[in-house]
């Protein structure tokens, strides 16, 4: 399996975990559930924030939560299409 494919899958898993936690999860449990190293987690986290797939929100106690943006939900919806397309065209 290619590195790029892994990257797309990691992003999918990352976003799926957030979605399955009622679209709201703290960074520490998210790190644990993604099974990534701290360094990799931070890289993906920053990338997804930059691409606006996820957002950081704060509750009234100023605790940070991670939530999906519309673009993040859209990626989850399109994931199978993306994989199918890449496989079909041998990209």
């Amino acid at each position, binding site marked *: 399996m*290619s*590195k*790029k494919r892994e990257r*797309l899958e990691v992003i999918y898993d990352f976003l799926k975990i957030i979605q399955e936690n009622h679209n709201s999860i703290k960074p520490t449990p998210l790190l644990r559930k993604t099974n990534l190293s701290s360094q990799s987690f931070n890289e993906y986290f920053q990338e997804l924030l930059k691409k606006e797939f996820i957002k950081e929100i704060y509750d009234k106690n100023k605790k940070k939560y991670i939530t999906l943006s519309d*673009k993040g939900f*859209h*990626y989850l919806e*399109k994931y199978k*299409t*993306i994989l*199918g*397309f*890449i*496989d*079909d*065209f*041998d*990209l």
Partner: protein
Amino acid sequence: MMHNFLGKGFEAEFLYTFIVVVLCFLVYYKTKEIYELTKHQGIKYFRSAFLFFGLAYLSRFLLHIVILMGISFSFIISRRVMFLPVFTVPVTYLSTMAIFFLIYSTIWKKIKYKYFIILSNIIAISISVIAFCSKSLILISALQLLLLLITVVISTKDHRKTKKKYTRTLYFLISVLWLINLFLLSPGRILLFGSKIFFQAFSIIVFVVVYLKVLKWVK
């Protein structure tokens, strides 16, 4: 009248170019969303290939008109000599890059990005300079065929175990059909009108198949 000097087959040529260009641009447009979501390099090169093929077919059509004008107004041959090389350059550059992008979309994981862009541009510009100097579309077709064969060999070497032979055959057909198109554009290379229509119809079918394959995933 413009119609008179453009001669028989012009309408078919116009229709053929129009359909192919529209299909190429549709492939480019339809894949925009999944590229923007993923920024996947393979999708990027795939899209670039069809964008460049669309532009190459457009510039080929302009070249076709220039050649027809040159034949019709042979008494002002110096104008043809001036304009033909100018129109040959974009056709050569765009099509060479399109072939490179199409092949590279399947082997991009093996070759570094910067290396590819620099190398492909150097080769495309070199062939364009040869096109400008030689004014020979046959020579350009031969050089692009050589280039295609080399890239196909490299591509096959890296993908011996691939199951996507059908897709690769489509890519190969797109490139080969382009080369035949360019070869036939050379003055003196006359194909029977019926044969040309058959060949162009086959070419359109290949582009339609690719477009339908894209539509299967991206609606």
